[in-house]
């Protein structure tokens, strides 16, 4: 889970990793500009790199200039993300820049500290031309870094004299932060030696492990809460999260109501393969409650983009009869008008089928757009039918104006 630069730097300060003085400014906090000393660097806060090329990093000599630049950056798009905050930092005159990072090497299943004399530029580009430019130091999981190792790295980066110890200290702190906050990545690119002899982390990149956040309550106090690996949650994703439903908004019109996560991913592929457009990813988890199943359906039915819903239940841990019951109750209570094409197979399939047939008989009007296939219909056929049905739905049901408040901002 990527942090914004200004969030990462909050963690740096906590670990006494030196960063330039700074303020964060958004549309509603322009008065923070009073605190700024010029010249200043203005950096749009984004989840992706390449900000320099995109014009999101600028230098201002005075307040007027700064205001104009901030206005030009705020609201700009960078990849799929809209810039909503800028970080204003004291401008540092750079003497030398290096690269350091602590990360998890998923090939080796080890912790890895990386360092390069060639900081300040895209490290992947550099190492493509000159693999030796990137130094690697491996550690076992949980292993601490000793002082001498940090000094060795600092020496390998070419620091000597006072700088040797200062950079070694920063390396130790970066590694401690990496372990201490269960990070996947802590990267400083560049770490700079300024012309006046000080050392600063100019940029800061941290990827947190969302699953370890329960250990680190102070993150919440710092305003850092769960988001996507890259990017904030949409409003609907936040609602789903609050209900414990793994849910991701996509761009299409076919609502996906699958079983587990793995098949959820497969369903999106299959819909795409047959020229449909999935509206979401969703995962019921093992043995979802009736309430949760109804909430899952609700997320799809309430999404104005969704024209038809594809459902699949492979009765295992989660039984088909429970699943059928949840659908019946939801339909009776909410009277959805969207077509639903589903397949139900596996454990307690017969019982589930009976429940659905009974409901169809009793409430023919409510269930007329709902079709549930059995194990003898291949899942691919069910998906194809859903796509076909969605195409027949009139578009008035899904006025494009209504999109903006829910969908991912892009």
């Amino acid at each position: 889970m990527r942090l914004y630069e200004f969030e990462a730097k909050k963690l740096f300060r906590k670990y006494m990793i030196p960063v330039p003085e700074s303020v964060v400014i958004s549309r509603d906090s322009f008065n923070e500009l009073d605190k700024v000393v010029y010249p200043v660097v203005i950096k749009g806060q984004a989840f992706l790199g390449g900000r320099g090329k995109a014009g999101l990093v600028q230098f201002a000599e005075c307040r007027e200039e700064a205001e104009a630049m901030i206005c030009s950056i705020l609201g700009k798009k960078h990849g799929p993300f809209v810039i909503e905050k800028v970080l204003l930092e004291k401008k540092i005159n750079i003497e030398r820049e290096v690269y350091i990072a602590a990360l998890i090497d998923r090939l080796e299943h080890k912790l890895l500290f990386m360092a390069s004399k060639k900081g300040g530029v895209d490290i992947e580009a550099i190492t493509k031309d000159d693999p030796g430019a990137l130094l690697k130091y491996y550690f076992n999981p949980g292993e601490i870094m000793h002082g001498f190792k940090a000094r060795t790295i600092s020496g390998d980066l070419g620091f000597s004299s006072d700088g040797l110890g200062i950079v070694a200290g920063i390396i130790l702190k970066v590694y401690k932060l990496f372990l201490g906050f269960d990070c996947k990545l802590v990267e400083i690119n560049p770490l700079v030696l300024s012309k006046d002899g000080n050392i600063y982390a100019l940029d800061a990149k941290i990827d947190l492990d969302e699953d370890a956040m329960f250990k680190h309550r102070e993150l919440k106090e710092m305003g850092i809460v769960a988001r996507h690996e890259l990017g904030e949650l949409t409003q609907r994703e936040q609602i789903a999260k609050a209900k414990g439903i793994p849910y991701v908004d996509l761009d299409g019109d076919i609502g996906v109501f699958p079983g587990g996560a793995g098949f959820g991913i497969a369903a999106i592929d299959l819909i795409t393969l047959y020229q449909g457009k999935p509206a979401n990813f969703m995962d019921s988890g093992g043995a979802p409650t009736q309430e949760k199943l109804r909430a899952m359906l609700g997320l799809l039915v309430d999404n104005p983009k969704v024209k038809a819903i594809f459902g699949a239940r492979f009765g295992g841990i989660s039984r088909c009869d429970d699943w059928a019951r949840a659908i019946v109750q939801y339909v009776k209570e909410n009277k959805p008008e969207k077509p639903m094409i589903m397949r139900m197979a596996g454990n307690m399939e017969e019982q589930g089928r009976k429940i659905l047939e009974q409901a169809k008989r009793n409430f023919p009007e409510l269930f007329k757009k709902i079709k549930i296939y059995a194990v003898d219909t291949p899942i691919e056929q069910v998906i194809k039918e859903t796509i076909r049905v969605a195409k027949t739905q009139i578009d008035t049901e899904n006025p494009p104006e209504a999109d903006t408040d829910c969908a991912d901002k892009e």
Partner: protein
Amino acid sequence: MSIVIDNETKTIVQGITGKNASLHTKFMLEYGTKIAGGVTPGKGGQEVEGVRVYDTVHQCLEKHPDAAVSSIWVPPRFAKDAILEAIDAGIKTVIVITECIPIHDMLYARQKAKEKGVVVIGGNTPGVISPGKALVGMLPKITFKPGRIGTIARSGAVTYYLANSLNLAGFGESTSVGLGGDPILGANYEDILRLFENDPETDAVVMAGEIGGVYEELAAPFIEHMLKPVIAYITGKAAPQGKRLGHAGAIIEGNMGTAHGKIEALQKHGAILAQTLSEIPILVKRALEDRKRQEKPG
């Protein structure tokens, strides 16, 4: 003898008093799995489905020294400790049902397991089943039939769909192994492919992979050295970047973990790629027939 577990394997259930664990203890017992005991600290002396609960794995092993497999059902914050406890007590295979284990925790437990030569499967594995013999985990028994195809998948649901597709086409499974949906896994594809390659009860392997991580890519070179055919099915071709799809491990991060990269690596090293679930049994059948034809002239 089946790989990982068979009908003689004695197992332990760590976290047995939890809601899911106790339910599936019942299902495992019904399936015929031999459960030596359960472990929940502070609940020693209780019983769950007739299985005795112990306070520690050590205490359980004192009474049941022949237990060799333990399944872990504790909440994620206790998973690392539970795995380490099993390793320390002398368990040889640890099957980690718990999902969303912190990455650093799992890396640490994995390292300790490697040092002691212990096999860890998971985290977030649906479990392992050798149909008709034994089941450890929460795989639904109804989905699996005894047979000669080995399956490996990260996801539970995909494991069921694989078996279902195979079964409808008249195949059955020698063993189905869930590797788990977490980002850091104990056993990887290569570990299990190796077991199937050497398993006289397996004729072909179906492996299902998904976006995230590099486990599929890492296994690809081994496939080239296998005599048995490997049919691979990779999901997530249409998945968005930088968003976690249900499994903690199912995220495309930068260039790492794309379905495209996995498919390319597997194809390059001789795996047979399936586009859809329905295609899988067709490809298995064809591969086995090809194999037979090749064997005849030789």
